[in-house]
């Protein structure tokens, strides 16, 4: 893992104080060891470094916990919570640690509960077309098992090491949200350990329920602040019969993005529409030693279509091609066979890795779909104004734009690193300008990654005071001692 610096600071920019919590002493460690077994408790600071951060790049927010525990069952999680709640020790749930806003970082130290060992796919229930999994099942294994069963799980967040605990807690999205929606749309039931150690099971193998307040949905997207999710019931679907990826080069970004609303106007709903700049493609090509399907243009739309049959697929792709060519696309290339589709997706999904070394922060702004082109134009303006490279790509059709604020400039296709003095100050200015643009367009600061620590200060900028106060009230009902992932979303 590529960390910006290795020293672990005990306090970060929010001046976190641990005063209101008790320390994890020897006695508590012994009790934890009793609950999960000796070898499933880590206290060695060196071994805990891995548990001090997620994929957010800056060590400013990283912090070692006092102990990491790896339970293997709901009962074990319940015992840990009971102990922590009585002793007033903060608990931070952690899954795949692919989060991008410090969500699983133990902001106040205490106990990190890693669900990594709870990785069983309990069943794939063909009769109900639902799966039940433990919170530590990762996407990669889940897709494989679902495919083996001849079914389909539509959401596709970009990092397949993410685990269901984290996916539920962040309400993850991904490229296919345009057509199939986000994780929330597929979660039917949960088993959750509350901060008190009590266990509840909202929802079930049900397609619908109007029975009281929907606690199930309250947990989805709660970023581990209300309880620890242990089991998840997931809706599956029959797989699409045919898939096709279209790779569409354009000479300019604006035309590419403006095509998207036109496509939607023509009643085409692709599985995914991603826009990607050629400059990042080239860097990724070089890293992987693989070739993108075409060299023309400087921006691409990647449109993935699904259909029930070949005829329908041809009809859909012809309409897409028509709209794109009208809007100035250079050509429309097709990846039909699985190998070619895989190659295209592989390059697309490794783009982040290819620029990660210099990525300071990944923004997750979501604006109404009709506003994407304007927002992206603003990004280019800000990039020129500050001389920071802001490679931007992502889900063009659901309004969710990922801008990477880089500690580098780009010159003639080459990444030129900047010194910390050169980017440090600009980071806040760039972020502020883009958040202002986001708000002006009726957007939100997170479409799918969550607020965590990193975006906490900005939440009041886009969410009404009264709404935040209601959120805090809810938090208090579930977690009166404020032990469950404190310091996230709001203070």
């Amino acid at each position: 893992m590529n960390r910006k610096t290795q020293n672990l600071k005990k306090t970060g920019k929010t001046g976190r104080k641990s005063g209101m919590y008790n320390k994890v002493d020897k006695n508590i460690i012994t009790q934890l060891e009793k609950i999960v077994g000796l070898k499933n408790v880590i206290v060695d600071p060196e071994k805990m470094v891995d548990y001090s951060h997620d994929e957010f790049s800056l060590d400013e927010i990283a912090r070692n916990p006092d102990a990491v525990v790896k339970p293997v069952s709901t009962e074990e999680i319940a015992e840990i919570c009971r102990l922590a709640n009585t002793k007033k020790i903060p608990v931070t749930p952690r899954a795949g640690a692919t989060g991008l806003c410090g969500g699983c970082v133990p902001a106040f130290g205490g106990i990190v509960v890693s669900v990594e060992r709870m990785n069983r796919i309990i069943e794939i229930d063909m009769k109900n077309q639902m799966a039940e999994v433990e919170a530590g099942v990762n996407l990669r294994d889940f897709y494989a098992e679902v495919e083996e069963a001849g079914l389909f799980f539509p959401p596709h967040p970009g990092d397949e090491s993410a685990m269901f605990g984290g996916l539920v807690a962040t309400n993850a999205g991904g490229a296919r949200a345009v057509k199939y929606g986000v994780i929330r749309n597929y979660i039917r039931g949960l088993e959750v350990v509350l901060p008190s150690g009590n266990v509840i099971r909202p929802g079930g193998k049900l397609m619908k329920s109007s029975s009281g307040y929907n606690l199930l949905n309250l947990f989805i997207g709660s970023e581990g602040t209300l309880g620890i999710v242990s089991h998840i019931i997931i809706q599956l679907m029959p797989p699409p019969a045919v898939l096709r990826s279209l790779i569409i080069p354009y000479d300019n970004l604006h035309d590419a993005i403006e095509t998207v609303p036109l496509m939607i106007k023509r009643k085409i709903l692709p599985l995914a529409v991603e826009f990607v700049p050629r400059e990042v493609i080239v860097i990724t090509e070089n890293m992987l030693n693989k070739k993108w399907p075409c060299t023309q243009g400087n921006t691409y739309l990647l449109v993935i279509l699904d259909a029930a049959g070949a005829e329908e697929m041809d009809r859909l792709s012809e309409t897409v091609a028509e709209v794109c060519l009208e809007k100035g696309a250079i050509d429309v290339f097709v990846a039909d066979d699985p190998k070619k589709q895989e190659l295209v997706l592989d390059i697309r999904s490794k783009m982040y890795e290819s620029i990660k070394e210099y990525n300071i922060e990944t923004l997750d702004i979501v604006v109404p779909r009709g506003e994407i082109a304007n927002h992206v134009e603003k990004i280019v303006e800000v990039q020129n104004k500050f001389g920071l490279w802001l490679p931007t790509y992502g889900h063009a059709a659901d309004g969710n734009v990922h801008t990477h604020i880089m500690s580098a400039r780009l010159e003639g296709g080459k990444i030129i690193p900047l010194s910390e003095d050169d980017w440090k100050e600009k980071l806040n200015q760039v972020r502020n300008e883009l958040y202002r643009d986001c708000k002006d367009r009726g957007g939100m600061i997170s479409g799918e990654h969550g607020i965590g620590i990193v975006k906490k200060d900005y939440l009041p900028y886009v969410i009404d005071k009264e709404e935040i106060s209601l959120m805090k009230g809810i938090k208090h009902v579930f977690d009166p001692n404020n032990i469950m992932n404190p310091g996230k979303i709001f203070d």
Partner: protein
Amino acid sequence: MNIFVFVKRVPDTESKIRIDRENNTIIEEELNFILSPYDEYAVEEALRVRETVGGKVTVFSIGPDEAKVVLKKALAMGADEAVLIKDDSPEAYDGLRIAKIISRLIKDKYPGYDLLLFGKQSVGADNAQVPAMVAEILGLPQVNVVTKLDIDDNKGTAIREIEGAAEKVSFPLPAVISAQKGLNEPRYETLKGIMMAKRKEIPLISLQDLGLTEEELLPRLELIKMDSPPAREAGKVIEEEPEDAAKKLVEFLHKEAKVI
């Protein structure tokens, strides 16, 4: 320049092959079929030759109706014409039988060619016989396993792989060339290409049209048994703390694998 390319529909190399032991065939159900990857290099090269010296690219396949799919693909990539020689007999793994059909086809129906392009072998059968046999039957120069090709008016040069080196040869046209991986990077079809290919008629030629007798078409090979390769043994996993794992690994490499 009149360029012919010969292509085959083969099971996707990524598919899981299941064998019907009773009938000594592979089970086609649930199998994904593709244009044989080496043939795809041949089609791409034909298009590139046409782009530099002009001419026409015709693609042929021998097989059942289903083989039209790979012809359509070649058309979508940019070939001018495609022809199916309809052959419903099961896969015989007999290169000579196919070479005879091809030679008769071009001698009788398609004279006046300059370049015959093949994949170096078809995946699945992997005999690597047909290009050489066609060249022999027709008395043409041949260059196999080609990784670079340059064609002029009536002659060409090619680089071919040989053990530990590359060989450069020149030859007069017409000639037979078989394509190796690395010859080029096949293009992606464009949507326009796919739609044009969809509307394009593919003429059929039957084996009877070629005047081939049943005797001539009988495979000279008898397939006795078909089986899967033995399953690979599971790898060894050392699960220890790093220091112990390193010790164990060294011990294993030294004592069991005997590589250090």
